[in-house]
């Protein structure tokens, strides 16, 4: 039933609960009290019938009745405390797990996000954790309590009359076989429904995110047909689940009634011969429910616990996913503080890099040097490795071979958080937060409105921001098309200006901007560039021409490097590229 891996998950969960020992203790202390009450009650029933009702003896009856009420009150209190405090522990632990997971995810390497759809990570953090809260915590609480109660009651029954107990136990094997059979069927169906549901939900999610595309392509009937397929498959499987569920429930309820019949039939002889008292027989009949109902519920409790193990498995993936800076020898940020106040120099020495261990090298021996205030331009075809250089610098990807020295320190030994203040990255895709414009420029740094406006003016974004309904307080929404592509890029430039980092990196950042606006931005940027170090991936000659160093990249190597004039004089690839273009223009 429990695999060793499940026990590991359990241990991990228990680690989270250890913080709340005092609650757990209160809850667990209540359990024996509750079980004692559960035994006392049927025993008192026997006493009432045999001592008072059968012999028609009134004296002492009120005392026993009062005792029964007392037992019920204690049982209620113990049960409520047991459930509440253990649930509290469970929910607090889930709260902590969620926070721990979010903290971890923020440190996951880029490769994790490349390989994992956002929706999956999201469902780990929400529905999987909720499943643990509902299925696991409640399932375990119920299972533990029910099984202990059942065993205790069986023990009591056996103690009172073992013959009658044997009659009850006689019914166990078929009940157990039945529940096991149904449970196995349900598990198989459950696996199937889960994957169908996941596929259907995934597809639905995709279609809703891309609803504009669906509508613009008038593809509604096509996507609906596909979705109906998933829905139908899921429904059919669930109808089967219903049939099994119904059978299990009804047969066990039926068996309870049959057992009562058997008890009376067998008991009738025993009562006559005085082996069994009437009270015992009646108490047995009344207690059957307490034995069979838990047995019936076992299967669903176990199923829900199993479901929660699937959730545990998902969550464990997040816990075992290596953080990007795990197992790396890093220099402490204290030590680095003085050395990384400003950008001084950058050197690539024979850097090689590939995204996957068995993939091709995207960078294959790159070497160059860059000093403070210099401008570097990266030129080359798509896939030549330009963006990869920037991704290594921002530490989005680690594990390069060779050496990258930032201010003379090996980049791989610097903690990521110690370099983020050094650079601003401007890309073609800009992410906007669901916050106002001011936040989207300042991000989480405490900048005044004036400072934000100044940054916006610097990149000519102030004008369009002023035209928004609430200007700088205008709420933006991620993924919505309130702003044009060009406007969002202006926001990202303002972001970079506001941050004021010494090293600016541009990855084709101006491609969605029209020429006139770009001209303005170029002017602004060149003002900004004056005392900054710049690494730019660009295709416009004006950006490239004035660079201190141009790297012409080809298939992960630097095929030529130097200044514009040098490269032209060289008459190689760079010159060829320019030449080709000139000729074409002449033709027109």
């Amino acid at each position, binding site marked *: 039933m429990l695999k060793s891996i499940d026990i590991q998950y359990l241990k991990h969960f228990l680690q989270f609960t250890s913080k709340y020992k005092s609650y757990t203790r209160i809850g667990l202390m209540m359990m024996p009290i509750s079980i004692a009450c559960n035994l006392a009650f049927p025993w008192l029933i026997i006493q009432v019938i045999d001592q008072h009702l059968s012999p028609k003896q009134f004296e002492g009856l009120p005392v026993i009745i009062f005792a029964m009420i007392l037992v019920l009150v204690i049982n209620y209190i113990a049960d409520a405390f047991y459930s509440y405090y253990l649930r509290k522990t469970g929910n607090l632990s889930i709260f902590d797990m969620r926070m721990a997971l979010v903290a971890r995810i923020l440190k996951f390497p880029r490769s994790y996000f490349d390989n994992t759809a*956002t929706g999956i990570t999201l469902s780990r953090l929400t529905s999987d954790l909720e499943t643990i809260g509902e299925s696991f915590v409640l399932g375990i609480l119920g299972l533990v309590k029910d099984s202990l109660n059942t065993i205790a009651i069986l023990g009591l029954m056996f103690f009172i009359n073992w013959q009658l107990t044997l009659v009850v136990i006689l019914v166990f094997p078929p009940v157990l076989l039945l529940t096991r059979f149904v449970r196995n069927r349900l598990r198989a169906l459950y696996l199937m429904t889960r994957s169908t549901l996941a596929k259907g939900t995934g597809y639905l999610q995709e279609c809703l995110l891309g609803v504009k595309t669906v509508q*613009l392509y008038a593809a*509604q009937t096509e996507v609906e047909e596909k979705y109906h397929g998933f829905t139908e498959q899921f429904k059919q499987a669930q109808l089967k689940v219903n049939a099994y569920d119904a059978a299990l429930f009804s047969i066990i309820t039926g068996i309870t009634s049959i057992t009562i019949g058997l008890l009376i039939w067998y008991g009738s002889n025993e009562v006559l011969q005085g082996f069994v008292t009437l009270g015992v027989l009646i108490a047995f*009949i009344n207690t059957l429910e307490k034995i069979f109902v838990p047995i019936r519920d076992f299967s669903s409790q176990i199923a829900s616990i199993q479901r929660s193990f699937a959730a545990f498995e998902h969550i464990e993936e997040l816990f075992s996913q290596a953080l990007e800076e795990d197992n790396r020898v890093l220099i402490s940020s204290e030590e680095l503080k003085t050395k990384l106040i400003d950008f001084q120099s950058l050197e690539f020495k024979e850097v090689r890099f590939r995204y996957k261990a068995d993939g091709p090298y995207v960078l294959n021996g790159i070497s160059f040097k860059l000093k403070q205030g210099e401008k570097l331009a990266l030129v080359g075809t798509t*896939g030549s490795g330009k963006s990869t250089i920037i991704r290594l610098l921002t530490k989005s990807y680690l594990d390069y071979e060779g050496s990258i020295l930032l201010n003379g320190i090996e980049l791989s030994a610097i903690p990521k958080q110690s370099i983020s203040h050094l650079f601003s990255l401007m890309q073609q895709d800009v992410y906007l937060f669901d916050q106002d414009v001011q936040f989207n420029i300042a991000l989480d740094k405490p900048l005044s409105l004036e400072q934000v406006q100044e940054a916006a003016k610097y990149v000519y974004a102030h004008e369009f921001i002023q035209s928004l309904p609430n200007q700088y307080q205008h709420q933006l*929404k991620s993924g919505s098309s309130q702003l044009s592509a060009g406007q969002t890029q202006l926001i990202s430039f303002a972001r970079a200006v506001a941050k004021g980092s010494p090293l600016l990196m541009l990855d084709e950042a101006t491609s969605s901007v029209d020429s006139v606006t770009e001209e303005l931005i170029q002017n602004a940027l060149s003002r900004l560039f004056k005392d900054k170090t710049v690494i730019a991936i660009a295709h416009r000659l004006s950006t490239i021409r004035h660079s201190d160093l141009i790297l012409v990249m080809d298939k992960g190597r630097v095929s030529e490097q130097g200044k514009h004039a040098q490269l032209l004089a060289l008459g190689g690839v760079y010159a060829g590229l320019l030449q080709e273009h000139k000729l074409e223009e002449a033709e027109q």
Partner: protein
Amino acid sequence: MTKREFVGHYFWLNRYSYLFAMVLILIVSWLQVEIPRHIQMAIDLLNESSPLAHTTLVGHVQWVIGFALLMTVLRILSRMYALNPGRITEAALKNDLFHRLNRLPTSFHQKFASGRLISIINNDLNGIRLFYGVGFLQLFNIVFALSLTPVWMYRISPVLTLYTAIPISIAFVIFFLGFRKMRVLHVQRLQRLQDLSEQLMNDLSGIDVIKAQNMGEWVQQKTQTINQRLLETTLKIAKIQTFVIPVLDYANHLMKVVILGFGGYMLLRSELSIGQITAFLSYSVLLALPLMHLGRIVTVFQMGMVSIDSVLSILNQDIPSRDTDSEAKPSPLSKGASLQVKNLNYRYAGATIDALSQVSFTLDFGKKLGILGEIGSGKSTLVNCLNHYLEVESGHIFWGDSDMATTPLSHWRKHIRTVTQDPYLFSDSISENVKFGASSRGFESDDSKIDKVLSLSQLGDDLSRFSQGKHTVVGEKGIMLSGGQKQRLSIARALLTPCDLLVFDNVLSAVDYETERQILSGMFERIQGQSVIVVSHRVSALEQMDEILVLKQGQIIARGTHTQLLATSDYYRQTWLLQQHETEVQSA
């Protein structure tokens, strides 16, 4: 649709299932109360030793077992037929919702984040499934059990029946007070879960920026707040569930005490037999289950109502009347007509200035129109008006004689196809993405056609580098492809099936000038008998157009051919000069 209509609609959908289940449950409930009657008679015979009494006793036991067997079979059927409607409704509703979401206008999708819609379909539908499944099953069960059982009890002893009602009535009041509070809390919890989901989704989408800007702490703080709020509600619910809800269960035990106490007193006065007390105890067990379920069922109905509200927020959004059932009808649009735009104005909700004002032009069939303008000048707004992504009043946009405002969307979009600047791809293979929507438009696509459009959009070379060629899976939102590849794939998708007007909205911003020119001229060669609109920042892409519009602040400030505009428009000339001067390095 009101809530009542909704409930009625899906109830009616399952009317035969429900009717059958109701009849079965009635029989089962009757059998259920008959069984204790036979137990009672059997027990009263226990103390009699005559052979006749013994035969009668065995007869009663046989009745008990026979009834139990019959009850089992009927109950299996009743549960299946009562539970299945839940799944059937769930499936039908999923399809209905998806159908509507696919047809609701842009204004709706801008208001409702897709994360929220998915949460409704994933979480709220569960509530509705339980409502129509377990909800109605238990409702029938409870109605019959609670109406039959007390009658049978009353038949034995009216006085004792009344006494036993006391603890139950008190418990009921407590229970419902707790319940009212829980309903509010459940709504709150779902809301908070949605908030959490939405926030985590946003943070995961912006993970790159968050990591690069070291904003981890900000994210954790936000998560902590929302997580804390969720925890608070969850714990409040747990408190009610553990302290208030079980009160009913204990009231049932208290009933047993009352039966033994008062019943015992009556027995001593010979008003009751011991068998009748046993029967009363059995009936109290029979009452226990429905009473316990009453709690669950009220939750189910309350949650169901909350969920129905959520779902109605989608179902009550009207699909414009022109679009209902339009897909089956023949298109009112004639082939080969001209596109006419007359005095088009557009203002975004909440904006203070027009995004478009007094835009007028005519595009004759087979002609090519270019649109140039700075960012925020209204180019994309115009495109979104033309493809009816945005709502435009009647009298402004015409295809031949047909007014766009009154033409069914699906037909309009079969004639007018847009390639947007942010292409959306499905996580399927490249060829499936190219085929997207083709079958909805009644078009059979074969491999050769797909290859052709892939090569037309200059994607052929890229594909040959993928090991699986056009069967390569592109990942979520096409994550495996570069920006330029995504754009070219979306062009191939647009070219696969014929249409009357193709609109390219700045689609080639991520490819270099040269590739853009190649794609466009290749396309123009092939697409004869189609009108084309190209929006671009690049004069080179617009030179070959029959007419070019220059937009500024939502107005057409100049129009004409390339040569005409060079002479008449300062903005056009300036852009052209900048780009001429801007000799670029090829394939950067």
